[in-house]
């Protein structure tokens, strides 16, 4: 977030006179095209993971890696989060950690459910 001052206030001459937040978030178009290109490349990569039939940990690891990179690019640049102050970014990014805790709980719960199904139902449920 410390990079904010480098980009946040690039305004075209003659446009700086507009008051308030109406002139906020101006970044070079080139940056958006670059991110767009990377999103295409990363999507193609994650599609290739399926196309060339990778299996096991490599498959899951690559799917997660490409997913996180894409999500990061969209949030950081398209949604302008790297140019917002940390007070906002953290308020938005931290709460979803609760979802990850929920995931961990449900993984344990699912393991228990599948165990009881295999133990007590002959054909599974």
């Amino acid at each position, binding site marked *: 977030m410390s990079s904010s001052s480098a980009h946040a206030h690039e305004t075209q001459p003659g446009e700086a006179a507009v008051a308030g*937040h109406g002139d906020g978030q101006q970044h070079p*178009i080139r940056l958006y095209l670059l*991110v767009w290109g990377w999103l295409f490349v990363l*999507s193609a990569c994650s599609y290739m993971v399926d196309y060339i039939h990778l299996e096991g940990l490599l498959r899951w690891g690559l*799917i997660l890696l490409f997913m996180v990179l894409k999500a990061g690019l969209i949030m950081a640049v*398209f949604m302008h989060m790297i140019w917002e*102050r940390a*007070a906002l970014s953290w308020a938005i990014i931290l709460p979803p950690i609760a979802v990850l805790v929920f995931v961990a709980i449900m993984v344990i719960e699912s393991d228990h459910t599948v165990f009881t199904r295999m133990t007590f139902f002959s054909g599974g449920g």
Partner: protein
Amino acid sequence: MADTAHTAPDRPDGLKGIASDWASDQRAFKTASWGKSMMWIFLLSDTFVFGCFLLSYMTARMSTTVPWPNSSEVFALHMFGADIPLILIAIMTFVLISSSGTMAMAVNFAYRRNRRMTVILMLFTALMGATFVGMQAFEWTKLIQEGVRPWGNPWGAAQFGSSFFMITGFHGTHVTIGVIFLLIVARKVWRGDYDRGERGFFTSRRGDYEQVEIMGLYWHFVDLVWVFIFAFFYLW
């Protein structure tokens, strides 16, 4: 609203910045307006909704003893004399990413007061969003014809259908609402409402070109959710 000093020179960054921004007796989000903050908070709540959908899908898939249908084959299309796995989903992904790209540039042109380019790019965004929903309707039709129902399908675990219709249906609804709002905001830009600061129908507050950025936040979020659905539902 009083100016709450976005640009105070002595404002610290990092952890100290968070503490001092939140502790101050005014507003926590110094650089984000009321509208932008509320959109972010709405998106956070929507994150929980989609998070819980994906989480229940994970639970269903992990806890069933019946094999899960192979999404690579289920979503294959017969093209050019061969079955190409996931091809429709891949095209949908590229369409949605492209619509995010045009939206990001629309926001940029809006802040430059280039109304013509803003409207053109927003209409392109809406068009690609509508294309996405159209392809999703095609996909649903194909799967329903093949016998996929929320309570069963020909290939394996019954929960596949319920997860699929719930998750993609809710996402498709978000895209549809986004297309409608894109058209509404594009019309306002076209008429010059934001140059004159006309009051909006939704909040009755004076609008400016930040509305385009707030619209963009929603649209990028829809793209963001698709990234997770693509990874967990289609590829996993």
